C-alpha cells in the first residue's frame, strides 16, 4: 500500500489550498469538541474538589446555588447576612463539632477579601482529605494580619511583611478604601487549585475594625474617624457574618440540623449540604454540557462532510488519472486505497491541527476562566476518552472516504483505459 500513500500525499499537496480549508474545518470542529470536553471535566473536578469535609453551609435565606457560589467559589454576593447571635446559638449546639465563620464584601486589587477565624486553617479540607498548608508564615496572630492565597501572592509579587490596603466593595477598581487601617502579610498558603488561592484572608474582627467608622458604605467625616490602633481597643465582635460552615460531630445528625436551621424562627436562614448542592448545580450545568457536546459533535460532522464534498467533487476530473494508473499496472484496489488514504490523511492532519488549536485556546482562556468562574483548566495531556473521540473522528473520516473510493473503484472497472474527460 505504500505506493498509494506516497501518491495520496502528493495529490493532496497539489490541491493544497482546498486541502488546507478542509483541514481547517476539521481542526476547528475537533478543537471545539476537545475544548468542551476539557471544560466539562475541569468544571466537574473543580466543583468536586473545592471543598470537602464540610457538612453544612449556612447563610441568609436565598437560593441554594447563590449560597454555594458565594461561600465556596467567592462568586456573586450575599443578599443578606447572618446575625452574630444566631451564629453563636448554632455554633454552640452540642451536635456541632466545629464551625468556620466567613465574612465577604471587600476586595484587594481584584481578589476577594474574606474575614474568618483560624479555625478555617484548621478545619478546611479540599480534594478529599487535603489540608491547607502554609508555604510561608503562619495564621492570624495580630488583628491586622492577612494570609494570602498562592495566586494572590504570586500575581501581585507579595511576600511576608508586605502591606495591604483593602478596598471597599468588590469592584476591580475602587475609589473607597481602608487606607487608614493597612494590613500586613503574615502568611502565604500553598497552592490548592481551588478558589482559596485567589482569596485574601483576614481576621473576622479586622473586618469589623476597618468598617467601625463607616456608615452605609461610606467612611465617616475626617473628625469622626477611628484610627487603626484605637480600633484595637474596641470590642470588635462582628454584628453579623456572611455565612458559616459546620462540621458535625456525627454525619447522621446533619439532616436534623439542616432542617432545624431551615425552620429557625428567629431569623431566615438557609442550610445546604455542599455535596448535594454541588450535585444539583452539576445537573443544572449537565444539561447545558450535554447540549454543548451534541452541538460539538454536529460541528465535527459538518467538517467531515466538507471533506467528503471536496473529495467527491474532484472525482470526475480524476477519472483520467485513474485510467493512467491502471495503464501502468495499478489494480482497482490501489485506486480505492488511494482515495481512502487521502481522506484519512486530511482527517489526521485536521485532528492534529485541532489538538494544537485546543491547547492554544486553553492556554489563552485559562486566566479568564479562573478569575471569572473559579474553573481551573488543566493543560494536561489528553485522556483516554479524548483519544477515543479523536480515533472515532479519524475512523469516521475513513468511512466517509470509502464512498468516493468505492465510486472511483467502480468507475475504474468500467472505464478501463478509455479516456473519459
Amino acid at each position, binding site marked *: 500500500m505504500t*505506493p498509494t500513500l506516497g501518491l495520496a500525499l502528493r495529490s493532496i499537496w497539489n490541491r493544497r489550498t482546498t486541502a488546507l480549508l478542509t483541514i481547517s474545518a476539521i481542526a476547528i470542529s475537533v478543537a471545539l469538541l476537545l475544548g468542551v470536553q476539557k471544560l466539562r471535566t475541569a468544571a466537574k473536578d473543580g466543583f468536586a474538589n473545592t471543598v470537602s469535609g464540610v457538612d453544612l453551609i449556612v447563610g441568609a435565606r436565598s437560593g441554594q446555588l447563590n449560597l454555594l457560589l458565594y461561600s465556596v467559589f467567592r462568586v456573586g454576593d450575599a443578599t443578606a447576612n447572618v446575625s452574630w447571635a444566631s451564629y453563636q446559638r448554632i455554633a454552640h449546639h452540642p451536635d456541632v463539632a466545629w464551625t468556620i465563620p466567613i465574612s465577604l464584601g471587600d476586595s484587594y486589587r481584584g481578589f476577594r477579601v474574606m474575614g474568618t477565624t483560624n479555625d478555617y486553617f484548621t478545619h478546611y479540607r479540599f480534594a478529599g482529605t487535603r489540608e491547607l498548608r502554609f508555604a510561608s508564615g503562619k495564621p492570624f496572630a495580630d488583628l491586622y494580619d492577612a494570609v494570602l492565597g498562592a495566586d494572590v501572592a504570586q500575581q501581585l509579587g507579595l511576600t511576608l511583611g508586605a502591606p495591604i490596603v483593602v478596598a471597599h466593595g468588590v469592584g476591580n477598581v475602587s475609589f473607597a478604601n481602608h487606607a487608614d487601617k493597612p494590613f500586613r502579610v503574615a502568611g502565604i498558603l500553598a497552592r490548592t487549585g481551588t478558589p482559596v488561592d485567589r482569596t485574601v484572608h483576614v481576621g473576622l474582627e479586622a473586618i469589623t475594625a476597618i468598617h467601625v467608622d463607616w456608615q452605609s458604605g461610606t467612611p465617616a467625616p475626617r473628625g469622626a474617624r477611628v484610627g487603626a490602633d484605637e480600633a484595637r481597643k474596641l470590642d470588635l465582635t462582628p454584628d453579623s457574618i456572611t455565612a458559616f460552615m459546620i462540621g458535625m460531630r456525627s454525619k447522621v445528625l446533619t439532616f436534623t440540623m439542616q432542617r432545624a436551621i431551615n425552620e429557625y424562627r428567629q431569623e431566615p436562614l438557609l442550610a445546604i449540604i455542599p455535596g448535594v448542592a454541588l450535585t444539583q448545580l452539576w445537573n443544572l450545568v449537565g444539561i447545558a454540557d450535554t447540549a454543548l457536546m451534541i452541538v460539538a459533535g454536529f460541528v465535527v460532522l459538518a467538517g467531515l462532510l466538507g471533506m467528503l464534498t471536496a473529495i467527491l467533487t474532484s472525482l470526475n476530473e480524476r477519472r483520467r*488519472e485513474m485510467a493512467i494508473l*491502471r*495503464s501502468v*499496472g495499478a*489494480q482497482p484496489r490501489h485506486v480505492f486505497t488511494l482515495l481512502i488514504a487521502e481522506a484519512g490523511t486530511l482527517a489526521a492532519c485536521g485532528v492534529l491541527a485541532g489538538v494544537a488549536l485546543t491547547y492554544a485556546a486553553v492556554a489563552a482562556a485559562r486566566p479568564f476562566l479562573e478569575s471569572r468562574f473559579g474553573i481551573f483548566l488543566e493543560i494536561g495531556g489528553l485522556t483516554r476518552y479524548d483519544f477515543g473521540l479523536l480515533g472515532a473522528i479519524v475512523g469516521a473520516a475513513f468511512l466517509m472516504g470509502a464512498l468516493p473510493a468505492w465510486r472511483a473503484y467502480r468507475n475504474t472497472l468500467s472505464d478501463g*483505459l478509455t479516456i473519459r474527460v
Partner: protein
Amino acid sequence: MSSAAHPAAASGAPPDSPASRVATPATRTALAIDVRDLRFAWPGKPPLLSIERFAVARGERVFLRGPSGSGKSTLLGLIGGVLQPSGGSVHLLGTEVSQLSASARDRFRGEHLGFVFQMFNLIPYLGVLQNVMLPALFSPARAQRIGDPAALRTEAVRLLAALGLASSSILEREVTQLSIGQQQRVAAARALLGRPEIIVADEPTSSLDYDARESFLRLLMDECRTQGTTLLFVSHDTSLGRLFDRVDSLADLNAAAAMPGAA
C-alpha cells in the same frame, strides 16, 4: 486480410485446416500478441468485436487503422487486459491473459506492457521524472529489470533524452506547463521504462501538429528498435503507416463491423 506470417505455414499444414489453427508452443511464444476468435459485446448491446485472428510477432511494429467508435479502444482494452472477451482468447507473450484473474492481469500489464494515449497522459500532481517512473512503482518486476532507484532515475533521464527531451529544465517544470508534444514524449518515456515487451499506442500523435508527428514517431521507433519492443500503433492518420512493418485495418479484421446494426 492480414498479411502476417501465418503460423500454419511454418508447420506445413494447409491454411484454414483445423491443424493450422493449432500452433505449436514454439511458434506461440514467438508472437507478442495473439488474438483468436475474439468476440466482445457491451452488456445489452449488439456485438462490437468479432476478430477471427490478429497476431503481432515479437519486435514487429504494426500500424492498426481504426477510426474512433470502431471499437479500437475496446480492442486495446482487451489486449491490455482491463476487459475480458465474451468469447475467444487473447495471448500475450505466450500467456493466455484472458484466462487470468483480474489482479493477475493487472500485474501482467504492469510488468510487460506500456501505454501511450492520445492526450492527458500524465498525472498532474507528479513531476516529470515521477511520471516516467510510475510503472516501477506498481511493478517491482519491471523495476528490477533496471535496478535500484538510482539506476531507474538514470534510465528515466536517458529515455527522455532519447525522445528529444534532454534539457534539465524540462525535468524541473510542472507537468502541466509542458506542451502537448513534450507531454507525449514524457508519456512515451514512461511506456518504455523498464523494457516492457509490448507498447500499445492509442492515437499518440493525433493531438500533435503535422510536423511534430513524424519526428515523435521516429524517436519512438528508434527506441523500440533498440530495446526490441513490439509496437502496436493505432491511428487514423494513414500517412504514418509507411514507417511501419505492417499496416492493418480494424474494419477488415472485425467481422462485427460489417454486420447490420453494428456500432
